[in-house]
């Protein structure tokens, strides 16, 4: 299972992590390609500060106007993290370590890294490499490979 993570909201990042980890636990190979805003999840300085999207997210069940108020994102994020902790879900940094130790390969998108002016040292050590889309497709070029865009 190959996952492409393009978003940095907590719900998307955890979806990718849980699916990728779940695959490894079932004995299925898994890799994650971090691109565009997904790169936030592998930046040392940013990965513990990801947030829930409170605006434009109908599942939050709060009016969009309220979702935009200062502090709303932080509050919703805090509440969600509390619920996650109850279920023993690891924080982002620890989750990345678990994924890497489990044999899930983590890749950063070259174009996005250049676009955001990032350096290798801005990214976590667990990243295998910074690669192009073509490199990633080459990894997917096998029978029974599934690609999922998150």
């Amino acid at each position, binding site marked *: 299972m190959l996952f492409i993570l393009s978003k940095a909201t907590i719900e998307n990042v955890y979806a990718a992590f849980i699916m990728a980890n779940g695959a490894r636990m079932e004995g299925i190979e898994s890799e994650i390609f971090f691109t565009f805003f997904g790169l936030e999840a592998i930046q040392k300085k940013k990965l513990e500060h990801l947030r829930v999207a409170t605006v434009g997210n109908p599942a939050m069940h709060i009016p969009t106007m309220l979702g935009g108020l200062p502090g709303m994102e932080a509050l919703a994020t805090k509440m969600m993290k509390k619920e996650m902790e109850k279920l023993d879900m690891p924080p982002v940094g620890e989750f990345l370590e*678990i994924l890497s130790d489990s044999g899930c390969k983590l890749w950063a998108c070259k174009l996005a890294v250049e676009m955001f002016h990032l350096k290798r040292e801005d990214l976590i050590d667990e990243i295998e490499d910074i690669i192009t889309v073509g490199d990633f497709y080459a990894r997917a070029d096998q029978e029974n490979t599934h690609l999922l865009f998150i």
Partner: protein
Amino acid sequence: MIKTIKQIAINVNEEGYLTDFSQWTKEIGEEIAKENNIEMTDKHWQVISWIQEQVTAKKPLSIRGIKKSGVIDIKEFYALFPGGPLKVSTKIAGVPKPKSCI
């Protein structure tokens, strides 16, 4: 379902997990390991004992729990029990397959 291992009849579910832990013995664990192409070592048994302790204490099993166990790290866990380590190790340990998604 009834399964016979070394002339001993044990109760298992359709996936091959023991349904009655009291029927478990080290020999049975060893045979299930062989079916999964695993040759048990001391390290394997250490992990199996830890898993059985957790289940007896009604603590949920997860990959994060393995990390914190102090018995084994995740890399080694995957190396010792290839093909889904929690799934395989719990089968050998004679305990139910973990229901956790993490």
